[in-house]
């Protein structure tokens, strides 16, 4: 998560710095201390991310089983991958899960942030409560949700015992609804952190704006939606990227809540990858799937850099 969140941070702070540095050209290009300080991180980033990713891609063109090898078999792994029902279902699930999770958590996160922004008493307490789920492992929360959704011991049986004998609420047992059960479980984790980031964004908006809006007689809700929200683009982008990276590699909550079932209806790409490089001992197939997972991430990062570059160019023009 951190490695992809980084560019976002840099967008917020770093570029302002480089833009300022650009003018006095006489300054030394590299500061020895900062180079020394960042070397381990650079080495890790290149060693762990770049080299590993390159090997993953290379192995995806081989027939590697338990031990990676270099017997190249062309695109066979990719052909098998895309002919596989389970993989196609996984990709579709990821799309649905992603759109729902991000959409709902952004909306609710923003609503919660607005609520917290009303200078309520006990704000700290509420913030802790909302943020707490994020501190917990998805395995633990996933299990708890699984129990709550279990028809024999969860919400359904509790309500039935209260007298509503025909009450039905067990999303995980049916393949049509299981994915939405997962979304619910995931949201509980994700909304709090979205709220925290958006709240920070809200607080960052100049209070003069509010005063001006008041003077103009704009209703509060309109101010929140049409004036303040566009002004906190950075916070929204950060929350979005953070969610996105969590979604692409969603794994633990699936294992804890459904194990991909019923059938294969809640399978996700990351589960496919992990299962193939471990128990199914087919590293080549796993790597092909991993490479496919990398694609949207690369596109996303590319898009982000494009936007930054664009913003930077505009800023330079303005200066």
């Amino acid at each position: 998560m951190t490695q992809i969140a980084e560019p976002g941070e840099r967008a917020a702070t770093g570029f302002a710095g480089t833009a300022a540095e650009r003018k006095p050209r006489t300054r030394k290009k590299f500061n020895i201390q900062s180079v020394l300080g960042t070397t381990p991180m650079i080495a890790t980033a290149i060693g762990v991310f770049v080299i590993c990713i390159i090997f993953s891609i290379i192995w995806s063109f081989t027939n590697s089983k338990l031990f990676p090898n270099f017997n190249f078999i062309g695109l066979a792994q990719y052909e098998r991958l895309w002919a596989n029902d389970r993989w196609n279902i996984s990709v579709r699930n990821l799309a649905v899960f992603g759109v729902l999770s991000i959409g709902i958590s952004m909306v609710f996160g923003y609503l919660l942030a607005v609520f917290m922004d009303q200078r309520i008493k006990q704000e700290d307490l509420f913030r802790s409560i909302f943020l707490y789920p994020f501190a917990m492992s998805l395995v633990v929360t996933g299990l708890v949700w699984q129990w709550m959704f279990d028809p024999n011991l969860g919400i359904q049986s509790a309500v039935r015992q209260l007298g509503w004998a025909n009450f039905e609420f067990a999303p995980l047992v049916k393949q049509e609804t299981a994915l939405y059960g997962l979304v619910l479980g995931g949201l509980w984790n994700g909304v709090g952190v979205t709220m925290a980031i958006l709240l920070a964004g809200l607080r960052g908006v100049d209070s003069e704006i509010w005063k001006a809006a008041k003077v103009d007689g704009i209703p509060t809700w309109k101010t929140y939606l049409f004036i303040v929200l566009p002004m906190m683009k950075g916070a929204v982008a950060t929350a979005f990227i953070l969610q996105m990276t969590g979604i692409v590699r969603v794994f633990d909550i699936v294992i804890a809540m459904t194990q991909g079932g019923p059938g294969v209806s809640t399978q996700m790409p990351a589960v496919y990858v992990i299962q193939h490089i471990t128990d199914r001992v087919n590293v080549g197939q796993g790597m092909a799937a991993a490479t496919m997972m990398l694609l949207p991430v690369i596109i996303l990062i590319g898009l982000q850099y494009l936007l930054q570059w664009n913003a930077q160019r505009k800023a330079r023009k303005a200066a």
Partner: protein
Amino acid sequence: MKSVVSVVALVAAALLGSTSVRAADVEVIHWWTSGGEQAAVSVFAREFDALGGDKWVDTAIAGGENARSATLQRILGGDPPGAAQFNPGRQYEELIAGNMLLDLTDLATKENWAGFIRPASISEACLVDGHWWCVPVNIHSWNWAWASVPAFEKAGVELPTSFDDFLSKAPKLQEAGIIPFAIGGESWQINGAFGVIQTSLLGLEKREKILKDKDLELAKAEMPAVFEKFRQFKQFSDAGSANRNWNDTTNLVVTDQAGLQVMGDWARGEFGVAGEKAGVDYACLALPIDHPTVSTGGDIFLFPKQSDPAVEAAQLKMASMMVNPQVQALFNNAKGSMPIRDDVDMSLADDCMKRGLEIIKDPANIAVDAGRWQSNDTTGQFNDLVAQFWADDAMTVEAAAEQYVTILQNAD
């Protein structure tokens, strides 16, 4: 509940992995976490510790898939456990080819393993190119169904005499408030039951032609009927089956909430732990009922190569202990599996195990476990397919059979 155990076990495994193991400690990775299984594995641990000096360090990881993954990753990562459980077959073929396992040939020759391990198909799982690479510890057969006698009595019907007979009686069970067909939603459980029904419908010969010789034409002709039959069972399963463990599912039969479960004979351990009596509280039906067979599944232990000679000596001691007739008797009685040798005292065995031991005497009754012919990759694809078919009513029998043939065709 079991998932909590698995989380705890994973954490424990991580902790154990990080501390260095004492010279003669042998860390054993296995997935025996249910009540009956724990009783069995503690026989091994106790007997090994009783040999003196060396110590059994238990690393239980719930779920065979998780445990095998952990073992493989640790071997690849250069931190192999002292011993690890696998199922006999192709799961560890690359470890043998990569020369990462301790060669047990000298010990096996000295103790004449080949002489007493029966049937031959059991030793074949470990005896590769004249070398012994692992120790078979038991024989487990998938081809069983477990019926609750009180449940059938409550519904007022006799125990089933065939799958078709069961399907005709199942509505009666349902009327009596009993889940007729207990099955857990994990893919291996579903595919396991599917395999048993497949064997029943096709017979051993056709099954072997399809699974071993990959006879695609035969598969095309026969598999639609198997899928068709399998789908009929679904209406008699319960809503809670999604994601349910096998032993929680067995527990439904133990507590007479469910009528019948198709599950391997490891389920018997659960009845034993609950104090149930074969023939009175539950019945074991060897399948197919008109011509009972035993499949040669089970468990093996392999011993990854170690740098420390003290550990290696302890590994050999452990291997020898595992085939010891007395240990075999104690272990298999607790586990509910059949011993890998004939000369053990099975006087403690219950009627179900005696039945199994009777069946296994005739080689014609042996259904070689499909894991001998299929890699884990192929088995996994079948698991996915059958689980998808079970859950997805929109998937047609023809589509499922077609995919079955494709997987078979591409199997390595």
